[in-house]
């Protein structure tokens, strides 16, 4: 089995209004030195052994559905889980 962690964030060139609001809120609470806050999505996928090329499969899922590559970047980590 594979555990896949997918992180999706707005591209650097795209303004993140939520992140900007949170950054301001943190400053209001007295936290200093915060240069930027970017808000994104985190997803966990569990794939079974029938998926042959996990890397290619996850990449395709990200490109086709999980991320909108016009405004979002994605990255992922694959962890192989061995049944005990």
């Amino acid at each position, binding site marked *: 089995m594979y555990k896949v962690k997918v992180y999706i964030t*707005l591209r650097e*060139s*795209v*303004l993140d*209004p*939520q992140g900007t*609001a949170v950054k301001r809120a943190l400053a209001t609470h007295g936290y200093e030195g915060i240069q930027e806050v970017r808000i994104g999505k985190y997803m966990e996928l569990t794939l079974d052994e029938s998926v042959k090329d996990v890397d290619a499969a996850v990449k395709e899922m990200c490109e086709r*559905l*999980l991320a*909108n590559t*016009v*405004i979002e970047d994605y990255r992922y980590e694959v962890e192989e889980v061995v049944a005990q």
Partner: protein
Amino acid sequence: MKFAVIVFPGSNCDIDMYHAVKDELGEEAEYVWHDAESLEDYDAVLLPGGFSYGDYLRSGAIAQFSNVMKEVVKAAEAGKPVLGVCNGFQILLEAGLLPGAMRRNDSLKFICKQVELKIENNETMFSAGYRKGEVITIPVAHGEGNYYCDDQTLAKLKKNNQIVFTYNGENPNGSLENIAGIINERGNVLGMMPHPERAVDTLLGGADGLQLFRSIVKQWREANAVNA
């Protein structure tokens, strides 16, 4: 002329679309469920606003893979008028029928109010009934209408005159270049955030949206009269 009003789970402006076409214009209209296999019987396709599939993941992201969207793509390729309003616009973007993407409104608020729209291009089958530069009043109701595209796409939109509506005066959502509605290169797929179907009766606040539906019908009648 026969319109298909596509209904996804979570659509909520379908009845307004139907009402605009059927009751105000006296044209034929039918609701078509998201799992429909064909749109061949229809002359035009309307994608209504709402929250298809709960807006899960992103607005319009799940709807783009519904059965009927393959048929919407076919209708667009056949040159039939395809109008996406609000969530319908978001679905057209996700499906790649129009370029760009939607971000959250820059205020982070859901905005529901009347806005002024400027007609930037009146040489489309959707906007021919307006004058170029005319300012009309139509309501918006959305949380994600902050249109974005890269510089290259924007240059192309401008070059091809694909920006049909812009917000006049105040921009409610922070969209790039005040964009409120764009059309594809071929000129038969229009996406817009404001709701023309909610502005078809002066008793209910205004009828500035009616001309858009009239334009579609007029263009269709003229085209079919030539063919007949």
